[in-house]
């Protein structure tokens, strides 16, 4: 839970006064809180995201490099977990949010702890 995952901000909106946005993590998209970086980011920027919160802005080259390193280090279990949870929650009660099925990792089973 300590490693942040970099992603690209593809959309921004407000949820009852809170700065939110959709972030694309190598094809997996989910809603992320942008409140802590709201003054410095806009659509198209990259940010490092911890448990659904963007904590720092990074440049594109750094974001892509870090993402690849995480993938190679098999540290993207969290992303798999994020994807499953996001999809389940979307299926449950909020089908209007942007989503994109399929993750960057074809191989490998889902994280055990994330299973329903």
């Amino acid at each position: 839970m300590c490693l942040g995952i970099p992603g690209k901000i593809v959309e921004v909106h407000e949820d009852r006064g809170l700065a939110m946005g959709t972030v694309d993590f190598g094809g997996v998209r989910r809603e992320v809180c942008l409140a802590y970086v709201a003054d410095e980011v806009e659509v198209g920027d990259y940010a490092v995201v911890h448990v659904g919160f963007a904590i720092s802005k990074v440049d594109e080259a750094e974001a892509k490099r870090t993402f690849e390193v995480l993938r190679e280090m098999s540290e993207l279990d969290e992303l798999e977990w994020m994807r499953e949870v996001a999809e389940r929650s979307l299926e449950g009660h909020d089908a209007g949010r942007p989503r994109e099925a399929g993750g960057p990792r074809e191989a490998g089973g889902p994280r055990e702890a994330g299973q329903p």
Partner: protein
Amino acid sequence: MKYLSEYRDPELARSLVDRIRERATRRWVLMEVCGGQTHTIVRQGINEVLRESVEMIHGPGCPVCVTPLEQIDRALHLATRSDVIFTSFGDMLRVPGSECDLLQIKARGGDVRVIYSPLDALDLARNNPDREVVFFAVGFETTAPANAMAVWRARELGVANFSVLVSHVTVPPAIVAILQAPDNRVQGFLAAGHVCTVMGWTEYEPLTGLYGVPIVVTGFEPVDILEGIYMAVCQLEEGRAEVENQYVRSVRREGNRPAQELIERVFKLVDRQWRGIGEIPASGLGLRSEFAAFDAELKFELGFITATEPLECRAGEVLRGQLKPFECPEFGGRCTPENPLGAPMVSSEGACAAYFNYGRYEAAAAGGSRT
């Protein structure tokens, strides 16, 4: 050098290894604080490659590992209540409590749900007004901004059926506790890059002067760690003790101010038990009294649940750097990631799991990594 071929940039890694070996006139003892760094170090065999020059002691920076047994037992108690939806980061589900873990409670019918963001738990509460939704708010300073926001928003939106079971810890007091231990051998630290992305590094500046130790803010990728080690070794060889920043692409001295401000508004410093280590004064975050209505410990009157840690798990010695995971008699026998006796064998950030998963312990043991 056998693992260097696995590096993304093997030439740079090789050059850093050479420079560390050239620079070190003796074997220095360094501690990496972050569990993600431990994972990289063991997986890539950095501790073995540099065996002659540095001994890496794996610090207590795995939030899953240091969450006290008592809080796990309280989580288990809540998860069994029929009126409660218990939500948690996925990492916590297999951490053994006194009698079972959250996954077993779930298998027995407890409503335990893995969420990715604490705001997901808040949404769950708003969508289930007839149930109590409790979120297990654990972690270091990396998850604190997210958890603080969930509580802040719960108050703002008036979500009365949401509460948090807080077990937050912070890094600097743990470093102080390690340095103050009479048997401390750590001569320098690699501070956790992502923690410092949030908090900056001003908190560490007094420690370098007070205890005469270098602290290098370091990322979690192999080359980051090698560079962080090199910077720490240079300081030690030159007799310097300063905070330096290896992870410049993410960390600024002042950190993320808006995140710090919300942490400050929602949480206060409290004494906190660390699993395997004991109580460290002012080392944790607890809810401020203004947010007492969202404190699951008060709401569900959990004070009666106390726990004593079993003696068979020697996680405390591992977390204090006194015992390498593979030196524990239960390692790989009675204690495996499938059947963990203690938390460091559960988490991917835990030292025991890292050694077990990457099978590097045999080489390390044969090479005599202890002095």
